[in-house]
């Protein structure tokens, strides 16, 4: 623990001084975790990696502002999330607005899941296929723990929009997960979902 902290301090110092070796060390230590964060906000891995790179550039440029009063990882994560949101804003202008996709009332009950019921890849896959707006709101609320009021401010949307986006996102996700489960347990029924 102590040694780790000393190493982190050393790396941090090097990064503040702009040393390329320290930057590389920081990247090597945290790139995997940060890519994991970005991957939740992106619609594919290439996009996620792009956001992660942008994020690291910001981190290196602003590392002098890191006060050291929180954890470095938390600070880096925040930058990644901000970068992902900026990216989302940028993309929203170009992409087709599928945010308003009608999600009909789910025929499924709200369900609880076992921790190991899905692989990590399955979960990433489902999340990346979410409509962009759902994905951002879902991540910010469910994983990062922002309040709807804060999300509204971050995304420049109405608080109620955030709430309704969230509940739709939740339903959307729930439904996909149930489908995955069904297709796993009874492969025959996979195709004829009318049953």
């Amino acid at each position, binding site marked *: 623990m102590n040694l780790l902290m000393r190493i982190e301090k050393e790396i941090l110092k090097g990064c503040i001084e702009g040393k390329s070796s320290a930057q590389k060390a920081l990247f090597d230590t945290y790139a995997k975790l940060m890519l*994991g964060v970005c991957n939740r906000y992106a619609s594919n891995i290439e996009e996620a*990696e792009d956001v992660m790179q942008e994020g*690291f550039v910001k981190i290196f*440029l602003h590392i002098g502002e890191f006060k050291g009063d929180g954890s470095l990882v938390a600070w880096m994560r925040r930058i990644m999330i901000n970068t992902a949101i900026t990216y989302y804003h940028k993309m929203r202008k170009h992409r087709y607005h599928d945010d308003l996709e009608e999600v009909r009332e789910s025929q499924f009950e709200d369900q609880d*899941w076992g921790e190991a019921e899905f692989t*990590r890849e399955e*979960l*990433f896959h489902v999340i990346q296929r979410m409509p962009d707006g759902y994905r951002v709101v879902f991540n910010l609320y469910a994983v990062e*723990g922002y309040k709807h009021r804060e999300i509204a401010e971050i995304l420049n949307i109405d608080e109620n929009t955030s709430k309704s986006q969230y509940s739709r996102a939740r339903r959307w996700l729930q439904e996909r997960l149930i489908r995955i489960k069904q297709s796993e347990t009874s492969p025959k029924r996979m195709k004829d979902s009318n049953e």
Partner: protein
Amino acid sequence: MSKKLNIEELVRIRLDQAEITPSPGAWKGVQRKLRVKRFLRFDPGRFNLYHLSGLVVAGAVAVVLLSRDPAADGSATIRNPSTQPAESGVSSGEPAPGQVSPEADGNQGKGGLKKNRKDVGKIEGNHSEGKHPAGREPYAGEEAGEVTGEQHPEGTKEDARAVPQTLVTYFTASSLSGCAPLQVRFVNTSMNAVSFTWSFGTGETSSEASPHHTFGEPGRYTVTLRASGEDGMSELYSQVVEVFRVPVAGFEIEEGLEGPDGVGSFELMNYSTGAFSFAWDFPGQEKEIWSSNEFQPSLKTGEIPGQADKIRLVATNSQGCTDTAVMQIPVAAGSTARELKFPTAFNANHTGPSGGTYRPNDLRIDIFHPHFTEVPAAYHLQVFSRMGEMVFESRDIYTGWDGYIREQKAAGGVYLWIAEGTWENGSAFNMKGDVTLLWSDRRWP
């Protein structure tokens, strides 16, 4: 693995710490982007676009200044924004730095510019990231413009003592970081200023000298004070206030399964977000009674003292910000946790007195006894006829009334009962009611 998660927990637990190996070229990409950004970004320590344009401008200014009165150098009042108030001595006694510049006439233009640049660099250092992407220069531009335009009217510049009115803009803050909502008291220690404009980085402003401001939302805010002197000149000073996100504590109390010993439990389902450490207890009770730092503890009903009706969760994040959630221990569940229930009728057994004893979990309808969730520490049941005669008495909860009085069948009909006693935790109970004794042949399955 038996624990079920809601969809938020599922995603959070599985993906929050997920690691993905980047593609081999990722680091190269970062370096490339970094180089491009660096060149476009202001940084006094590195050659970049700004140096390039700075050199061009400096050359031009030098030419202009050489053909003018050299003392009109405008950099005199550009202050380093991080100047400490102690340095304000400069303003009262000594002349402003630019005016006593020992630099040769020819260098003054360049010297001034260089100083400007340093100032800008410092201001930038105080800035929150990304707030003013290209907006660092305006400070310098503005300042320099105002200064060169208005500051030293001809005649005063020769006598340094005639300029004691140097504007010093500075403030301190009661705190520069903390949990949202963060109330900050700003103390204005500026000198020689007549009016102030504060901008808090939130879009809000104030013209008070030393305002209070509450930052409701988490974030980094650049608080800027613009002080204006009598001559209309103004100066900026800023500091960054960082407001930390507060976690959201939330949980639900769910009734767990009854253990083999018949003792019930509560599962405390933690729905908190943005927190990493948790502290559970009963508000208003000694910590020794019960507390836990588990993520989702379970609580035996027997551990709940009689006076406790609420459970409290304090969730803390890495910055030490906390949020507290308090939940009422469910009333129905709370009372079933320690409850006696007496039937309103029982059908005694014709075949003769049984002594009234029964085994735990053997619910008998031919014996009058209570259903209970916890064995009381003390128990006293009395049954009276309508004439007020006591027909049965028991101090053992596993002994009920079989409907016989001294080996004889008691008359069918209504009897009154009183049950008194205390629970393990010391709380007392005192109940009364009536029960109908039946001698029916009908047997229930």
